[in-house]
């Protein structure tokens, strides 16, 4: 019962451990779950567990019990609706041949040739959807890209004067369901206009975006990917007061992908984004924290500070732990974990940032390194987590990876773009980005919740 009572679910590890216990047990009451071929009847067991927990008043549904053949239906095809924002501030990304055009062409090609994309639909959007090309063929995509020019943007019309990002996001996300994923491509620069207080405008947009996402998440198992890319920009930038500023420089832009969790996972697994020509700068993935998966990890014998044993192997408990007696590290205890985060939806860099971790014992400090050297003993593992403390004690050390906004968002955010013409750093930033991301992030990772994406628990005994 302890399996489910801590998190109201039975994950793969817990389920398998239960199955092993049943197989090993001679208890006659367990015989009902064992088939003639000595294998466990998973459906019977799941049915019994459901009844058992209901009787024990533990809130748990069939979906919360991991089953061996319960893999998400990642082979299901779905439509991909692509929206390119064509407000006036986007003209600079499409003048001549730009990295923006190459990346978008590459992205559309990747989707079109993928085995999961049913129909690829191309759209322009500003306040409303101003143009749609349903079920685009290969030649339609080529034509779409070749026509990516300021004149076409103007021709597609709509209200190109302002970017009401909340409205755009609302329109796009509203169309996402189990048969339709969506891609939104924009510079995501807010346009408060000269008559609005910029800060109030950003706050209002953030709240509006948050409400839209929370509402959508009530109806759909929504996930989202945001990637930041960079392109040459040659055109007019409109600052927070809508003052036009002529820029000829590199500017960031963003591709957002919305879908249900299975669709988003498929897109990530098929590495559609990783193969965009020129790559992308950063990535965030927002997914419901209930999707928490068990992590593959191993405790390393080295690097370490002090000494310990691994009597149950690299995935077992640390025993006979003792602090270091060496002069440089006297009194310290430290160990390292190699972890596989490659199955996570988050960008690999996300796991390098220690602010995204929460330790059950604050006396431990954490550093994280990527595994770059080829090492047979670390095959299939992606990051090394090094933990160190000066207060060694018997405990179960919990290492939680928490869902939060990565630091690059803060670094890429502009709070005042009035001086963009003369400030080189400002040219690499996006006005109001933090408010936009926070609006979405608060829907997925409410500040009132723990928002644990992954967790590892290590038993340490002296």
């Amino acid at each position: 019962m302890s399996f489910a009572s801590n998190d109201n679910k039975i994950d793969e590890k817990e389920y398998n451990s239960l199955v092993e216990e049943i197989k090993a047990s001679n208890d006659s009451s367990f015989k009902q779950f064992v088939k003639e071929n000595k294998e466990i009847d998973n459906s019977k067991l799941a049915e019994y567990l459901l009844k058992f927990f209901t009787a024990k008043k533990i809130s748990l549904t069939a979906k919360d019990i991991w089953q061996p053949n319960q893999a998400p239906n990642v082979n299901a095809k779905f439509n991909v609706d692509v929206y390119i924002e064509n407000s006036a501030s986007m003209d600079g990304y499409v003048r001549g041949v730009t990295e923006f055009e190459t990346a978008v062409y590459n992205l559309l090609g990747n989707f079109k040739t993928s085995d999961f994309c049913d129909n690829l639909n191309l759209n322009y959007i500003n306040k409303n959807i101003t143009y749609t090309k349903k079920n685009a063929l290969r030649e339609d995509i080529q034509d779409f890209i070749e026509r990516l020019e300021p004149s076409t943007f103007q021709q597609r019309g709509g209200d190109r004067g302002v970017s009401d990002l909340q409205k755009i996001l609302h329109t796009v996300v509203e169309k996402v369901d189990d048969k339709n994923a969506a891609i939104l491509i924009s510079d995501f620069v807010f346009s408060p206009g000269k008559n609005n207080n910029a800060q109030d405008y950003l706050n209002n947009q953030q709240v509006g975006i948050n409400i839209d996402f929370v509402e959508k998440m009530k109806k759909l198992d929504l996930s989202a990917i945001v990637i930041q890319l960079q392109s040459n920009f040659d055109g007019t930038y409109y600052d927070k007061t809508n003052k036009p500023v002529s820029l000829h420089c590199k500017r960031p832009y963003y591709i957002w992908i919305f879908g249900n969790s299975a669709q988003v996972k498929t897109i990530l697994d098929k590495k559609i984004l990783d193969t965009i020509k020129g790559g992308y700068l950063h990535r965030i993935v927002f997914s419901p924290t209930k999707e928490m998966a068990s992590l593959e990890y191993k405790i390393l014998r080295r690097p370490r500070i002090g000494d310990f044993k691994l009597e149950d192997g690299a995935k077992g408990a640390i025993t006979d732990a003792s602090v270091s007696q060496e002069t440089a590290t006297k009194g310290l205890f430290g160990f390292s974990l190699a972890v596989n985060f490659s199955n996570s939806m988050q960008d690999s860099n996300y796991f390098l940032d220690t602010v995204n971790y929460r330790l059950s014992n604050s006396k431990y400090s954490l550093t994280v390194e990527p595994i770059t050297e080829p090492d047979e003993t670390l095959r299939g593992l992606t990051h090394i987590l090094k933990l160190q403390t000066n207060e060694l004690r018997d405990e179960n050390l919990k290492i939680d990876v928490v869902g939060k906004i990565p630091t690059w968002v803060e670094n890429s955010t502009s709070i005042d773009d009035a001086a963009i013409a003369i400030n080189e750093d400002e040219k690499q930033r996006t006005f109001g980005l933090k408010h936009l991301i926070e609006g979405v992030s608060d829907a997925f990772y409410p500040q009132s919740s723990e928002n644990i994406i992954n967790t590892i628990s290590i038993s340490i005994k002296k």
Partner: protein
Amino acid sequence: MRDFFASLYEWFGLSPFYSTDLGEHLRGYDITCSDYTGTPWYVYIGWIMIGLTIFFYILQYYIINSPGFNKRVHWWLTALVIILLNFFIAFILPWNEWQAGDFCKQLRITLADCLGFAASNAIWSFILFLLITSFNIPRRWAGHNTTDTTFWKPKS
């Protein structure tokens, strides 16, 4: 068995003569540094130590079993052969694996560790020989030649 020999050679956790890393290797920590699925050297070397000691006990007390080989010096000679052989075996097996690189690379094994483990094995073989030659019954079954050939009162 692995835990029994491990605690024996590690002197019940008090003060092993070698590093924890060699201890993990001797327990059978595998080359992928994941679990104890490698060669369980503690068990192998432990049984070899017991077998060799019993063999030399049988050799001296039952096979040679001679009034010409039952003096204090003969007891010590047999003990010395047992000690040296067990030292050599416990040294050479982990040493060879270390030289061949056939162990988990996260472990740091040194020459001093191999010598320390060899010393542990040699000491335990001596203790075992001392014990089995101390018991009256099996010794007496061999006849009168070696009745008094023990650590405690060997014929001088």
